[in-house]
């Protein structure tokens, strides 16, 4: 195996690598063993703190919480995509009076922390203006504004990354501005940007957990609730572990889907004039990893 950093190992390097590998295994196993030991010592594996998992009411409670999480995710994802499409169109407009405000809105919502946006919706609007905003609405609107702005930026970058010849050729064929956008640029850009868009949806799913802070009854909120029940033995760690597994599985599945889409777009690249050149692939990956 040759990578940028390392040559194919010779006998000495192989021995060294083997030693490093052994040390790595020992350190990792040691750390894991220590954590498990602390869990065992503090009684996190005792049957009575896991009892709750058998209660039907609690199972239904967690299922309901999961549905609340998914509901917030679905609504926020759709709204964010719409918001992103509208504002990307605004930013790409040739009219200064349209692109200026659109750029300002997108930049503003990208710079303000999502939690502050949610607080503005939940505490600010309800207490400052006297309009009653539910936790669900506040969470979804916050997610829409922030992720919609990021998506607008992704859409815009996708259209901008296409070769100029595409739009020039379309104009030369006598297409109108709207036709060029909808018939030529968007289909290509959307395909190239699909993995990035799905990755951004993972961010939406992850950020629904912020609803916990404004007491929206989603998974984490119910985990806190169950974890503080003394009659169940205050099983906050066991509940947190179960909830963590649910969250990570959902996000991993969605990430894997993004990964699959990415591989699929890459596969069709050779000889396909519509596919972006290598440079944009790198940029796209950076867009993807750059939005934690």
């Amino acid at each position, binding site marked *: *195996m*040759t*990578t*940028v*950093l*390392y*040559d194919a*190992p010779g006998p000495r*390097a192989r021995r060294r690598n083997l030693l*490093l*590998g052994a040390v*790595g*295994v020992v350190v990792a196993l040691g750390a894991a063993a220590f*954590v498990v030991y*602390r*869990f065992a*010592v*503090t009684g*996190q594996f005792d049957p009575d703190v896991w009892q709750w998992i058998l209660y039907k009411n609690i199972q239904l409670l967690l299922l309901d919480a999961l549905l609340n999480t998914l509901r917030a995710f679905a609504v926020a994802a759709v709204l964010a995509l719409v918001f992103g499409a509208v504002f990307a169109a605004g930013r790409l407009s040739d009219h200064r009076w349209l692109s200026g405000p659109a750029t300002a809105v997108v930049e503003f919502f990208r*710079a*303000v*922390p*999502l*939690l*502050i946006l949610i*607080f*503005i919706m939940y*505490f*600010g*609007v309800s*207490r*400052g*203006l006297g309009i009653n905003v539910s936790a669900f609405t506040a969470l979804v609107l916050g997610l829409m504004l922030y992720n919609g702005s990021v998506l607008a930026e992704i859409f815009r970058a996708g259209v901008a990354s296409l070769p100029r010849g595409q739009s020039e050729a379309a104009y030369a064929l006598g297409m109108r501005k709207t036709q060029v956008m909808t018939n030529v640029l968007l289909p290509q850009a959307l395909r190239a940007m699909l993995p990035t868009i799905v990755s951004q949806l*993972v961010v939406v799913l*992850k*950020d*629904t*957990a*912020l609803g*916990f*802070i404004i007491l929206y009854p989603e998974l*984490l909120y119910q*985990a*806190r609730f169950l974890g503080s029940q003394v009659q169940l033995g205050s099983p*906050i*760690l066991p509940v*947190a572990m179960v909830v*963590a597994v649910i*969250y*990570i599985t959902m*996000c*991993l599945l969605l990430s894997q889907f993004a990964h699959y889409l990415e591989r699929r777009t890459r596969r069709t690249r050779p000889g396909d004039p519509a596919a972006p050149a290598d*440079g944009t692939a*790198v940029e796209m*990956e*950076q867009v993807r*990893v*750059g*939005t*934690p």
Partner: protein
Amino acid sequence: MNVLLDNLGLYMSAFVGTVELFLVAAVGSIIGGLLLAAMRVSPVPVLRAFGTVYINVVRNTPLTLVFFFFAFAYPRLEIFDLSFFARACTALIVYTSAFVCEVVRSGVNTVPVGQAEASRALGFTFGQTLGSIILPQALRSVVPPLTSVEIALLKNTTIAAGFAVFEAGGIYQNLSERGYNVLVGLLWVALGFLILVVPLTLLQRNLERRWSVAR
């Protein structure tokens, strides 16, 4: 305006808290990210596997969940007492390191293999190859996205306010206790973040423009 001027002390101490949290977590996450990246590109399969698993799990975990663990679950393990600030920093470092690692790794991978092969053919040692050939080139494609990861970290520090660390995200609670308009107070917080984030964003775009390599 009154909301800001009457509570200037509150805003100042809260944003100082934010900046402290950000600086500690930024340095920590860069160190952690570099370590992870070193593991992920290393020729040792076990270390590579560990790096990959860590990245995949952490990148798919909500930051709120990481905070949740360090805020409520960690004390139950009775390992040793950490202040809330230290736990918030740890949560941010654990989470952000994964993103830093990915940025560094993809940056190193943008350097063509031929560069390293040529330097090895010229008899450069590993240290020389890394120090004079690869890192200077990788740095150019690492620093701009690294800046955006750290910007995201700066914004993520607000989540600590949801778990009782005093910083800018927690201003609204104090304001509503003092009977001020929370909406106006929160808009000032948003403005404060704009003041912190916009220079960093401009720096990042500037770096991206000047440092992008035509390949």
